[in-house]
């Protein structure tokens, strides 16, 4: 970009997918293909219906507010945002404007982008309801109200982001936060995450703390994937830079644009002066309610350690690589599994290797989650212990792993029932070595302690006879001793 720097702010809407019911109605909060099958009268605004606030949705929203280091309100209200659109059955959306205080204000998020630590200030976080979904056909559109009333968290950042990559890193971080908190799958493929992006550019050599130096804010609406966010920001920076270079920037009005996925461009929607007046006012049907400090304490105590902190810990405390730590914390249940196994007394690096290697590839191939995975942390410890005690070889470990899952038995049981105990007993090995020496006189004669390559051949023979159960190190040691003795 050269002479300019970008100021980017995000509005991230994320559905809360983990409540059982919608935010103001007791219809199921569940994604389904069957249209209009999760409906209570409230969701379609039949005359006389009233909103009733879901406690669990509020709890989750407060939890998110705390995770973003926001302040929580002492009392909570909802407000009506009034406008007409076919996907909005009431003619208003229940949401929270900044006055009175929404579920969270003035927070801060620390995240990582390309190995660098970044901070973004959060202006506010509010709890609101999703709209119905429209399907468009050639001559008409149809409305499915299943999504109407699904709880939605809207997070509004300050324009602290400076690049498209940083914006995406922030969103990925937030997705992980929501997943770790257990409040949303945050899956943009299911339409659960949607963003509006604010982009402006300013001369690089000016002081960015002085608002006078800021450029004109362009809002890009309806960006529904992280890739879209990246592309829309890049496009806008390019477009605005070009305007600067053509001396057209200063006449550009503050405006709202829309991201067009197909053409990869942003399209003018309306000017700031035509902005809709949403006529916000406090919803009288929802009495203000007190958020007790006891409840806040309870919620705070239930917040798990988040991915960002876990990753740091894995690297500093356990000496794991950035790569390994990143993979481990990607999903909370995997990270929990890892931590539980380590807490049983296993070596973190070994557990990480197993988790990131055999276990993840098994889960992926079977398309199951770790909660459905038979080999629990206790079994993983058993397996690692068996290897560390040299009862089985590492190679055998992999076989045992497969058998455990196939036969649904513990590693100990598998090793026993499959007769996979390594032979470390020297007298047993002695006999076998003697046999091998007897059967291979020529090779024995050619043995040269200075060039012990032939040793591998003997080990191979021993493994063949023991069907791999000989402990390779022990066998090798004994064989060497025998051959040396013979030479003398």
């Amino acid at each position, binding site marked *: 970009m050269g002479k300019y720097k970008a100021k980017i702010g995000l509005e991230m809407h994320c559905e809360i997918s983990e409540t059982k019911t919608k935010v103001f109605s007791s219809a199921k909060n569940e994604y389904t293909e069957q249209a209009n099958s999760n409906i209570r009268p409230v969701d379609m605004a*039949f005359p006389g219906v*009233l909103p009733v606030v879901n406690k669990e949705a509020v709890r989750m929203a407060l939890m998110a507010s705390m995770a973003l280091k926001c302040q929580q309100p002492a009392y909570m209200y909802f407000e009506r945002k009034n406008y007409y659109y076919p996907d909005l059955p009431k003619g208003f959306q229940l949401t929270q404007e900044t006055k009175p205080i929404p579920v969270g204000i003035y927070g801060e998020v620390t995240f990582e982008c390309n190995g660098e630590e970044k901070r973004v200030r959060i202006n506010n976080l509010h709890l609101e309801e999703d709209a119905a979904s429209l399907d468009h056909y050639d001559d008409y559109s149809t409305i499915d109200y299943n999504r109407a009333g699904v709880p939605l968290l809207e997070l509004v950042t300050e324009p602290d982001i400076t690049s498209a990559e940083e914006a995406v890193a922030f969103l990925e971080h937030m997705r992980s936060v929501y997943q770790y908190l257990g409040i949303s799958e945050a899956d943009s493929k299911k339409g659960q995450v949607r963003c509006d992006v604010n982009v402006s550019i300013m001369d690089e050599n000016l002081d960015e703390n002085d608002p006078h130096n800021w450029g004109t804010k362009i809002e890009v609406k309806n960006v529904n994937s992280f890739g879209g966010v990246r592309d829309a920001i890049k496009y806008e920076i390019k477009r605005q830079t070009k305007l600067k270079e053509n001396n057209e920037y200063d006449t550009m009005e503050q405006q709202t644009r829309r991201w067009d996925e197909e053409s990869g461009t942003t399209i003018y929607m309306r000017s700031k002066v035509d902005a809709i007046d949403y006529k916000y006012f406090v919803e009288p049907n929802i009495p203000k309610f007190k958020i007790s400090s006891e409840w806040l304490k309870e919620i705070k105590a239930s917040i798990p350690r988040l991915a960002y902190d876990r990753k740091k810990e894995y690297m500093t405390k356990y000496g794991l690589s950035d790569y390994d730590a990143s993979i481990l914390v990607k999903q909370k249940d995997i990270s929990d599994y890892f931590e539980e196994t380590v807490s049983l007394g296993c070596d973190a690096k070994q557990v990480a290797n197993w988790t990131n290697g055999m276990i993840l590839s098994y889960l992926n191939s079977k398309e199951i989650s770790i909660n459905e995975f038979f080999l629990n942390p206790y079994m993983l410890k058993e397996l690692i212990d068996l290897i560390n005690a040299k009862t089985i070889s590492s190679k055998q470990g992999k076989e045992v792993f497969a058998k455990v899952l196939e036969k649904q038995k513990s590693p100990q049981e598998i090793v026993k029932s499959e007769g996979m105990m390594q032979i470390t007993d020297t007298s047993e090995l002695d006999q076998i070595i003697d046999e091998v020496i007897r059967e291979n006189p020529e090779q024995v004669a050619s043995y040269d302690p200075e060039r012990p390559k032939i040793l591998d051949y003997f080990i191979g023979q021993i493994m063949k006879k023991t069907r791999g159960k000989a402990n390779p190190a022990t066998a090798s040691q004994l064989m060497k001793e025998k051959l040396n003795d013979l030479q003398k």
Partner: protein
Amino acid sequence: MKYMNKSIEELHEMLVKKEVTSAELIKESLEMSHKIQDECNAFVTILDDAQPVEVTDNLLSGIPCGLKDNYSTKDILSTGSSNTLKDYVPFFDATAVSKLKAAGAVFVNKTVMDEFGMGGTGTTGHTGTVLNPWDKTRMTAGSSAGSAAAVAAGVYPYATGSDTGDSIRKPAAYCGIVGYKPTYGMISRYGLFPFASSLDHLGVMTRNVKDAAIVVDAMKGIDKNDMTSWDSSHIHLRESLDGKVKGKKLCYVKEIVDLSNYENPSAELKEHIANFMKTVELCKSLGIEVEEVSVDKTLLNASPAVYVVISCAEATSNMSNLTGIIFGPRGQGDNYIEMMKDHRTKGFSPLIKRRFVIGSYVLQSQNQERYFRNAQRVRRLLVDAWKDLFKKYDGVILPVGSGPAKHLDGSKDILDKDTAVLEEHLQIGNFGGFPSITIPNGFISNLPVGVNITGNCYDDANVLNIAYALEEAMDYKNQIAKEV
């Protein structure tokens, strides 16, 4: 008329003693419904197939009644007296309706109202004007116009109403009956078509205070579908009526009642105030202390505007669901905006449209502070003023309106700056959610007039008991309208 002029307790006793059957009551009530429909145009729907129900211990079982047409009734047309819902048949009952059903109440008709309750004349319903059974050239007032006319005419002992400004209590006065709206949230609003949510109350119209207590006992209760409802299981209105009022304290507001506040008071107004003062004396003779109090006149004068601003603002938002998409007649148009606009333009009456525009204006971000929020602020000041009175007094007693029912040809429903606070003071009962009851207290020009008692929130039993004692001391209990 053999039965429908009787009280609920009388009818219940007759039913229990098998002197009459539920079917016979329904038959008479339906006959009366058709008669009053012809004479007064009181009903949107008459339920000719109403079925008798088993008579139980419940006082309401087997007895006919009417429901205002903004009560959502399962499988029964519910229009709110609006063309926007002229064919709307709900698939669920309002909570209050379910409760009445469970008590064994039999619904025989749905009553006409001012469109969505947004009027005080009974002239703006989509099925036309409701006429006052005492004098067909006069209005019933509104919005619970059909309910008031029907109860006054003896169609049944009670009908439900709703009250956002005075919509139960003013038509009750004009029709010579009892109109009671309990404390806000005592009866669930679930299934009541909203006008202004922070002011809307459900209530009842009857011909005596005890009947009002009986019906509200059945309708009230906390409801999981209405967050503003509260648990009143400890309140038993009928049982608490003992008529013992000695030592109770009432007050009336000088700025409202003193004739010197009105330029050129009409003869009717003078008579009305004189009649009210007679009622005050009657209260005193019952051992009730009644005192004159003073309230800041600026606040009182602001009250009508506060009401218009808040009610119109909430209404314009509440009725944004009326687009003809999910229910209501589908509008014409090539795109959704034209389609919605066609539905709304054709569906709403001029009065409502006007109120929507006002409501929208006062909510605009650049106007909200000056109009809407200031109105909400004065609302608080007025409520605080009344709450101050309730620290000392059991209730505020005031005349309803400026006299008897007005002539229909003179009806207007535009906020008039000269409108006396006298016409509008009942709104304060809605601002604060106070329990408030109107009972008939005499006749002027051969037409009934009413008096209102309003008490503090949750103090319904006390308010009703005072009204009960006062009613007993006057001659207007259980009166049936007769053409004058």
